[in-house]
């Protein structure tokens, strides 16, 4: 038996609507979008205008401060709109797809025969570089850094998350090529965290320069940040890189076929989906073909990603750059008469303050109501129960709120990202916006320390 790292603290939210393991070929979407807001801290500069023709792999915009980092179109077609938000911030660059995808060609070949710089250049030109993110800060990696190691979480424990073993089943070759390319980027190891509850999936077996780590426990055990903390925690000055497993596959395809093949399996899940399934579609695809005639009536919230960390999208919105899940749950914009006082048989809480604890194995329909008003920090010990890290979350958050850089550093800001503390936000009695505070803290660190 391999050594299993047991994660004790955390919470598996029992939310209804897990996707059944049936793979459906989604009808091709007409529209695709790349969203600069998917990339924290990015200042995009457009390279296209409305009506420009693009191929799959043609740049749409780049990073103003790292012009070598391109963001490319997942399909060929015509740029039909550039949506802007407040202060003309670019929200979406929308491409209307051709019926037949034409690809830009990039360098093809065995990454093992390439130099590190060549691998990086190939990834940057094709627009795949943003798949590689760094810790600390959880932002797009900087090609001029040499990371200590690369971490990949091979399973996702978030609510309704897709099962990567199922998703990656057919992608063993591309995944292995992707790993070869990644191993060029670091002098250290590639660490893959796998679910210790089940036998290791074939995709992760027998890889060169890869160390497997077995984790068992509730969410956030599948978060790469938690895994790094337990394998080799980040200290000041360390840089490690992280990649999602499905993105490793896309990287692998680049080297195998010389194209940006953005196809990806996405789970459609949530209590409001009639038949929650897995769909073969593409990154940036409009969700209309997935949700058409497949969601229930009512005021719904569509989320690209999971219900803890995902981004709200419209019912004709687009799948995010890093997401393998679309969740659909009811909006909670209703008043709840004496909701705080009644027994609450159908109200889920980590505490046993509602009588829902009488039915322990049940799954709940959860909506987006805040379930109360915002308050100052009052309860203690709640965050610690769902954060399996040697970190004092409330003290760290308070350090961020008062913008005390030294304290933030000392208390472990380098080790966390929003997603790692998402459960703290979920359980918070005072309804504190934990993830926004964490992102503000990270942005402050970047601004002050570069």
């Amino acid at each position: 038996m391999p050594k299993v790292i047991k994660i004790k603290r955390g919470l598996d939210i029992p939310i209804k609507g897990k996707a059944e393991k049936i793979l459906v070929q989604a009808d091709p979407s007409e529209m695709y979008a790349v969203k600069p807001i998917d990339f924290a801290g990015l200042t995009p500069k457009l390279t296209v205008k409305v009506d420009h023709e693009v191929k799959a792999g043609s740049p749409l915009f780049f990073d103003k401060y790292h012009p070598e980092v391109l963001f490319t179109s997942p399909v060929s077609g015509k740029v039909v709109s550039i949506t802007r938000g407040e202060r003309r911030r670019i929200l979406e660059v929308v491409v209307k797809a051709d019926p037949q995808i034409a690809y830009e060609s990039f360098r093809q070949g065995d990454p093992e025969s390439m130099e590190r710089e060549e691998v990086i250049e190939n990834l940057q030109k094709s627009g795949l570089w943003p798949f590689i993110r760094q810790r600390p800060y959880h932002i797009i990696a900087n090609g001029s850094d040499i990371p200590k190691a690369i971490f990949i979480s091979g399973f996702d424990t978030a609510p309704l998350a897709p099962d990567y073993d199922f998703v990656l089943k057919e992608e063993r070759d591309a995944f292995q090529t992707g790993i070869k390319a990644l191993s060029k980027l670091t002098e250290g190891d590639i660490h893959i965290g796998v679910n210790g509850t089940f036998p290791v999936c074939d995709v992760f077996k027998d890889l060169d320069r890869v160390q497997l780590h077995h984790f068992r426990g509730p969410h956030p055990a599948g978060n790469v940040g938690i895994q790094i903390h337990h394998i080799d925690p980040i200290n000041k000055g360390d840089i490690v890189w992280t990649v999602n497993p499905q993105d490793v596959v896309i990287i692998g395809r680049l080297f195998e076929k010389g194209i940006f093949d953005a196809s990806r399996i996405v789970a459609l899940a949530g209590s409001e989906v009639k038949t929650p399934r897995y769909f073969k579609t593409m990154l940036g695809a409009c969700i209309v073909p997935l949700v058409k005639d497949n969601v229930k009536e009512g005021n719904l919230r569509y989320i690209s990603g999971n219900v803890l960390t995902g981004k709200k999208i419209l019912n004709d919105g687009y799948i995010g750059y890093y997401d393998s899940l679309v969740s659909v749950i009811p909006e909670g914009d209703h008043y709840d008469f004496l909701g705080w006082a009644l027994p609450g048989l159908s109200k889920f809480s980590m505490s046993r303050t509602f009588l829902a604890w009488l039915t322990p194995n049940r799954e709940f329909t959860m909506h987006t109501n805040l379930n109360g008003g915002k308050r100052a920090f009052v309860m203690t010990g709640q965050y610690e129960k769902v954060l399996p890290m040697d970190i004092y979350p409330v003290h760290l958050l308070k350090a961020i709120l008062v913008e005390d850089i030294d304290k933030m550093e000392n208390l472990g800001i380098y080790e966390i990202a929003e997603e790692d503390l998402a459960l703290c936000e979920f359980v918070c009695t005072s309804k504190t916006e934990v993830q926004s505070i964490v992102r503000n803290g990270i942005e402050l660190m970047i601004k002050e320390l570069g």
Partner: protein
Amino acid sequence: MKALRRYIDKIKPNFVKGGKYEKLQSTFEGFETFLFVPNTVTTAGSHVRDSVDMKRTMALVVISLIPAMLFGMWNTGYQYHLSIGSEATLWGNFWYGFLRVLPLIVVSYVVGLGIEFIFAQIRGHEINEGFLVSGILIPLIVPIDVPLWMLAVATAFAVIIGKEVFGGTGMNILNPALTVRAFLFFAYPGWMSGDTVWISQLTEGEGIVDGFSGATPLAEAAAGNLGNIPSVWNMFLGIIPGSVGETSTLAILIGAVILIYTGVGSWKIITSVFAGGLVMGLILNLFSVNPFMEIPAWHHLVMGGFAFGAVFMATDPVTAAQTEKGKWIYGFLIGIMAILIRVLNPAYPEGVMLAILLMNVFSPLIDHYVVEGNIKRRLKRAKINAQS
């Protein structure tokens, strides 16, 4: 319910900025959110949230106090009837106590919530639920005969000076209910200690049976009259003179079970206070130079306000230590200090209140050292890595 909702939506415009009663906005909001959990949806971060909120949490603390409160009402009647040498039915005792305790509850809530509403309006905040708990704690930790005006003054003092000047619930350093008690204790000692204040109308002294003392077990112990101390069983059940809600360890333990099971109260603090009290009691037993020090250590846990303090006062999350390790230390020291003051300080018959207030002040220091430990671990880890 829809009709009620419609009515609220109809009158709501009067209470927003620019409306006729804009000065009552916070108050209106307080009542509105009391009736209806608002329809606010998540806009940033996690899309779904735990069902628990501050109202639910505070309501559960109030529920956990109900056994102690009901028993206190009965005991008030029972002790009164004992003092005048008559007997009453269960209901008779309870009804008498109910009528005596109700004014205390009303005064405490009216004064406290009134001030909270005013401050919420000044700050433009929502009303905080903290006082829902303080308001019921206060009547339970004062002698039954305390004049209502004194209670009002003390409550006002505790809410304004003890809490609001620091920024309201969540920011205070001292437990507000204990601040009330401490204020009364030092401002009006004649009403807060002695042998006559614990039983209804005993101070007036009319119709009292000969030889009835009314002294609490702690007072008897301090005087060295160990023979007069009631049986442990009676002290555990709470059929003894004392503050309204503090006498019955049994009722308090029922509350403790509710608090711990629902996850609202910290079992670490409760356990460690009892452990600290027991350890200090044992230490005193070792020396036992006077009769008080000879009382078996575990008897201390059912005497006076020890159990009430451990379960309902020490666990206040705002004023307790906030780190999990810190909670052990904080609770343990409360236990030690409470028994130490109780037995060795002749001026104070009971030490729990002062012990908790003292540790309230020290809890940030305890947390500081616990968090420093975390910082040191992180630095050490970085250094080891740098060397290798």
